[in-house]
């Protein structure tokens, strides 16, 4: 596999010279982005199917066998709908908001490692880059709410911005404790730091368990998913910040939300669950039986488990009230993660540090 890639790279270099690098990078980017778009489409189907089964009903089952063509049908329908731009809106901002929401959600994938060395760009400041990109997502939402010039959109954007900003702090502190343990911002190095002879006991979710839980819940809140979906609380503010969007404008917000969900799942796997590592590596019997499985499959498996949790939460928990949401973010998560940063830092000063 690696040899094949090397041969391709050498022949390409010989044929195209300086043009080769941009072309090859572009191919790599497409190889990452296309499956993400596909996963987003089928995540929506999975969501509807799983929600259906949890509520004892079949879910979509008319379009294609087992509803498998449903996402395609939805996509085509949205593509053929009129894009309505309200007369009182700021037209330029109104159109650019969905792009601003989607672009960072995709661009953050540039540094995510799917396997050893399988990433578009091996940045040393990878985690910082991810934090920067995911923070930009809030601009799309607040610009959408402002540009729509509609009360519901405005209220939804305000709520959403305050919520995202609050949970980003808890997320930031969670990242600091990962950095403490890993001593690197390079996502590949973070995974390699979890390698060892004890399989899943070497992963960071064990010393950082409270932080792992906080990170994931903050991730659910960051992506405006149930039970923290106050930004699009249909009972009080219609659809929140994307009330005025139709057709492809709405579809882009939808894509961005799901791409962000998958990104949170990928980051949780990389930082806490050993990324592409085999959970049974080094174990007596299981280790030998499972070591042949490629790292990519482990990574995708871990991401799928995390994504299932997203859907499970939605089926299980009622929506938070806004004061409860802010209390959880500021009065529970921030103190908890802050204390855990101190605990980990102090623990690392002692000889009892094992990871």
């Amino acid at each position: 596999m690696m040899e094949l890639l090397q041969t391709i790279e050498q022949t390409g270099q010989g044929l195209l010279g300086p043009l080769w690098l941009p072309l090859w990078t572009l191919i790599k980017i497409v190889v990452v982005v296309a499956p993400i778009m596909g996963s987003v489409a089928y995540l929506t189907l999975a969501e509807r199917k799983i929600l259906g089964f949890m509520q004892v009903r079949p879910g979509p089952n008319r379009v294609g066998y087992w509803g498998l063509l449903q996402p395609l049908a939805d996509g085509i329908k949205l593509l053929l709908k009129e894009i309505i731009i309200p007369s009182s809106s700021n037209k330029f901002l109104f159109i650019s908001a969905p792009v601003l929401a989607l672009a960072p959600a995709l661009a953050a994938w540039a540094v995510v490692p799917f396997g050893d060395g399988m990433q578009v760009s091996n940045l040393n400041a990878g985690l910082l880059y991810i934090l920067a990109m995911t923070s930009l997502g809030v601009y799309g939402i607040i610009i959408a709410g402002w540009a729509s010039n509609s009360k519901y959109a405005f209220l939804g954007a305000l709520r959403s911005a305050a919520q995202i900003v609050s949970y980003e702090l808890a997320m930031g502190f969670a990242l600091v404790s990962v950095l403490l343990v890993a001593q690197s911002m390079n996502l590949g190095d973070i995974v390699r730091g979890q390698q060892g002879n004890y399989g899943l006991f070497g992963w960071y979710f064990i010393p950082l368990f409270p932080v792992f839980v906080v990170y994931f819940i903050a991730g659910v809140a960051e992506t405006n998913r149930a039970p923290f979906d106050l930004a699009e609380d249909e009972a009080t503010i219609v659809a929140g910040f994307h009330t005025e969007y139709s057709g492809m404008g709405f579809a882009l917000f939808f894509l961005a939300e799901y791409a962000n969900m998958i990104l949170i799942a990928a980051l949780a796997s990389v930082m806490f669950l050993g990324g592409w590592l085999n959970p049974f590596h080094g174990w007596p019997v299981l280790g030998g039986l499972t070591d042949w499985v490629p790292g990519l499959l482990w990574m995708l498996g871990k991401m799928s488990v995390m994504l299932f949790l997203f859907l499970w939460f939605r089926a299980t928990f009622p929506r938070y009230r806004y004061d409860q949401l802010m209390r959880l973010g500021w009065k529970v998560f921030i103190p908890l993660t802050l204390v855990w940063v101190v605990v980990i830092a102090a623990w690392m000063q002692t000889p009892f540090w094992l990871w």
Partner: protein
Amino acid sequence: MLDNYFPVLLFILVGVAAGVAPLVLGRLLGPHRPDSAKLSPYECGFEAFENARMKFDVRYYLVAILFILFDLEIAFLFPWAIVLKEIGTFGFVSMMVFLAILVVGFIYEWMKGALEWE
């Protein structure tokens, strides 16, 4: 070193293109029949009563200000966290002093009720 950032730049451009292309396609493929009722902002079927950019709760500002403080704090923690093993106990103690000062501020705002929503 900078070589690593070229794919990132390209990726951002692809991300923007992935946002613009569907909008253009949707505009070309979809119908385009605007009328004044369709283009008015949605307000449960009523004419809009007033401008939507209305007054809102000052707490949103407060949250934004507190966010900047704490986010800066996190930005200070990042480089410290990466090199903690090298700077050892001295680095640990100095950061604890810094954090203690911030925690005093956090407790103050908590007691002042800046975190209350009712």
